[in-house]
């Protein structure tokens, strides 16, 4: 083909070509790194919380009256909620996955203050905990009603049973996590607890925590002044039941306020709002960027077509076909874009290294680079097609006219 002549012609007037190539290169660097960030955020978003998210909602009950009896209120509330038609089960707990606020404690396999324990998130549950959250018990057994201990706000004792997630068992007993059942672990340095159950998976309340899968359930109910109820409904019943439960609780006891009612969907949405927003912003940015780069290509290509109208006419008069002219401009753009994406690949990797060092982001997956190169080559070809088509329709007679 006529790559040689096209390349030499381009070299005689290279500024425009260099500008386009650079633009494509920077566009590619931004695009690939942005997509890589989006992939990372998406990975975060798609982790399961381990609970039956579609059918769970939660609300808080805060007592304020002087004669407020928290223990009686919690017992009556739970009995009343569980008795409502459509409710599968309900518990009092201090937290729920993804909510951002909760409690964590260090667990160690040996007692003693000099041992540095592993941080594990705590959910206080009663014997209805597994059913309410919808957890899958891999081994061992659920708590029974007699295991439940009431815990005051500043109490320091712990019950003697604990159910942990498999991830917790893996951290505590890396050699054989399944042997964790029946083993003793130590909380608050010296208090022993026996692992009586292992659940498959459940997330801690903090989605950005590196130990997000490390969770334990303890058989407690709390007297913290403020109670959070977690309610699981039959599929499809949640939205109808939410206002009913809220109204029922508010009516039952005037010495407290009911607040912070939200479904798990809302909690998830709020928890990952920053991540999902960033994905949207980056998508928008990439689109805009490609549009701008294409417009730049169109602008410069049109300009070069205008400048070369006489030459094109001359070539046509000398026998070049329309297709040859079209091919000329398409090839020219292809060469420019090719240089652009090659520089772009280098820039992309460079930018990624900077981002990894400064912001501890992850490395880009290798296939993004060739995919982006092909895509930008295609975008270039599409952008130049309009001006090239116009060039090919320059009539041969133009060659005979002056200016």
């Amino acid at each position: 083909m006529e790559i040689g002549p096209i390349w030499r012609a381009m070299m005689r007037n290279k500024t425009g070509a260099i500008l386009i190539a650079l633009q494509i290169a920077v566009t590619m660097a931004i695009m690939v790194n942005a997509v890589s960030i989006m992939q990372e955020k998406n990975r975060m978003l798609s982790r399961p919380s381990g609970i039956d998210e579609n059918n769970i909602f939660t609300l808080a009950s805060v007592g304020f009256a002087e004669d407020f009896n928290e223990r009686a209120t919690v017992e009556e509330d739970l009995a009343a909620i569980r008795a409502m038609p459509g409710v599968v089960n309900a518990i009092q707990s201090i937290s729920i996955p993804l909510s951002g606020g909760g409690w964590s404690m260090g667990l160690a396999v040996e007692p003693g203050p000099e041992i540095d324990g592993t941080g594990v998130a705590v959910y206080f549950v009663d014997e209805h905990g597994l059913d309410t959250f919808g957890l899958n018990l891999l081994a061992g057994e659920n708590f029974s009603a007699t295991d439940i201990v009431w815990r005051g706000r500043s109490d320091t004792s712990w019950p003697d049973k604990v159910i942990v997630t498999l991830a917790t068992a893996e951290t505590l007993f890396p050699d054989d996590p399944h042997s964790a059942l029946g083993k003793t672990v130590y909380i608050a340095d010296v208090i022993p607890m026996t692992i009586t159950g292992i659940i498959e998976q459940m997330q801690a309340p903090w989605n950005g925590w590196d130990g997000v899968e490390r969770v334990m359930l303890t058989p407690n109910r709390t007297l913290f002044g403020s109670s959070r109820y977690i309610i699981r409904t039959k599929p499809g019943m949640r939205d109808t039941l939410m206002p009913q439960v809220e109204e029922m609780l508010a009516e039952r006891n005037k010495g407290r306020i009911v607040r912070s009612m939200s479904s798990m969907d809302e909690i998830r949405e709020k928890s990952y709002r920053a991540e999902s927003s960033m994905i949207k912003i980056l998508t928008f940015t990439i689109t805009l960027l490609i549009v701008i780069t294409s417009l730049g290509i169109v602008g410069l290509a049109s300009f070069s077509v205008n400048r070369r109208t006489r030459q094109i006419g001359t070539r046509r008069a000398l026998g070049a076909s329309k297709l040859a002219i079209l091919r000329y401009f398409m090839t020219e753009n292809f060469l420019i874009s090719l240089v652009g994406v090659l520089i772009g690949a280098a820039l992309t990797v460079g930018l990624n290294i900077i981002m990894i060092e400064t912001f501890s982001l992850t490395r880009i997956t290798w296939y993004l680079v060739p995919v982006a190169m092909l895509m930008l080559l295609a975008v270039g070809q599409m952008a130049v097609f309009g001006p090239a088509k116009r060039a090919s329709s320059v009539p041969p007679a133009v060659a005979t006219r002056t200016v």
Partner: protein
Amino acid sequence: MFSYYLKLGWLSIRRNPLLSTLMVAAIAIGIGASMTIITVNYVMSSNPIPQKSDVLFYVQLDSDDLNTLDDEDNELLDQLTYLDAMALMKAGKAYRQVASNRSGLVLEPQGEGERPFSVDTRNTWASFFPMFDLRFLYGGGWDDTADQNLERVVVLSKEINERVFGGEDSVGRSVRLNGMDFRVVGVMDEFLPMPKFYDVTNGAFNEPEEIFIPFNVAVEYEFDRNGNTNCWKMPDGDGFEAFLNSECVWIQFWAELRNATEKQDYMDFLNAYVEQQKELGRFPRPINNRLSDVMEWMEDQEVVEDDARVMLGLSLLFLLVCLLNTIGLLLAKFLGKSTDNSLRRALGASKSSLFIQHMIESGLIGLGGGLFGLGLAWLGLRGIEMLFGEYVENLVGMDWAMVMTGIGLAILSALLAGLYPTWRACSIAPASQLKIQ
């Protein structure tokens, strides 16, 4: 001359409406995108209390566990224990000092049929109000005797005063909180420090609390805490008393130190205090106390989020693409006028006057792009507000400094973009383009 050049520039812009629109649009989009992100970063990293930021110091004492000493980053606990906070308050060695924490109370309005609601509360001391330069609509803060005598006094935010008292002067009236009567001593004016520097532990961009009550009163009645509590060692025994005497940290502590001497003296005092506590068997780690002024503290706590910085970097690269674009288009445009320029050179126009003319034209395009870009940035900020919700509500406002920066950045970018095309346009030999005619 300038106005003549302006006119020339304007005429030239109007001659190629499509190309000019493209250029203005390219700059506008670049400026719009980068200004949106710059604004968010600017607010995140702004100084919330510029008049005093260098005399207010956040106090950190290294009361942490010996086991975690090998951590390389030398990070200290970000709050104090009750024991230490009270000891420092009692010693009173700084010009002013304040210990405070976050809690939540239930407020019962006295009107018929009004439902009780929960209010974000800060438990603090009299010195909080003068230290952080808080302005009042009515009344003022309480005084030291109220702290000592456990007086049930309360300072309301403007919003709460509007909600409970319809915005009138409520000083002297009483508010029912958690079943107890509190006397209103002051109503604050609008108060929205960005970031919320005095307690970044519990959310650097949260709104300030809605009511302020004496710390000692909150402790006396064991009001619920709802801020971060971090215990490396469990309290010895059950009950609130054991919690207070524990190694749990949950209090933010600020000291006002007016000069280097005061700062040095206070540091010496802190070190002596820790030395003395070591004898009592506390503070297992080597002495490592820290005083950070407001901006140092914001830096230390990484208030500006990584995501925001990543976006800033990407948006500046985005602006670069737009500029490359503009350079290309300007080049096309100026070279398209070659005939014009060479004719004018032949007629005696100097290189420098051609240079100035083209730069003015570039600047005009930049101005246009900047104005449109600001509009786009405004839209961008609304978009961010829509996506992130109330979390960023206070981050997406543009002040005049930002508006001027935006226009300045646009003109500067356009001038930079115009340099090379202008140079090419000016270096045309006189009459070279006239030969073929």
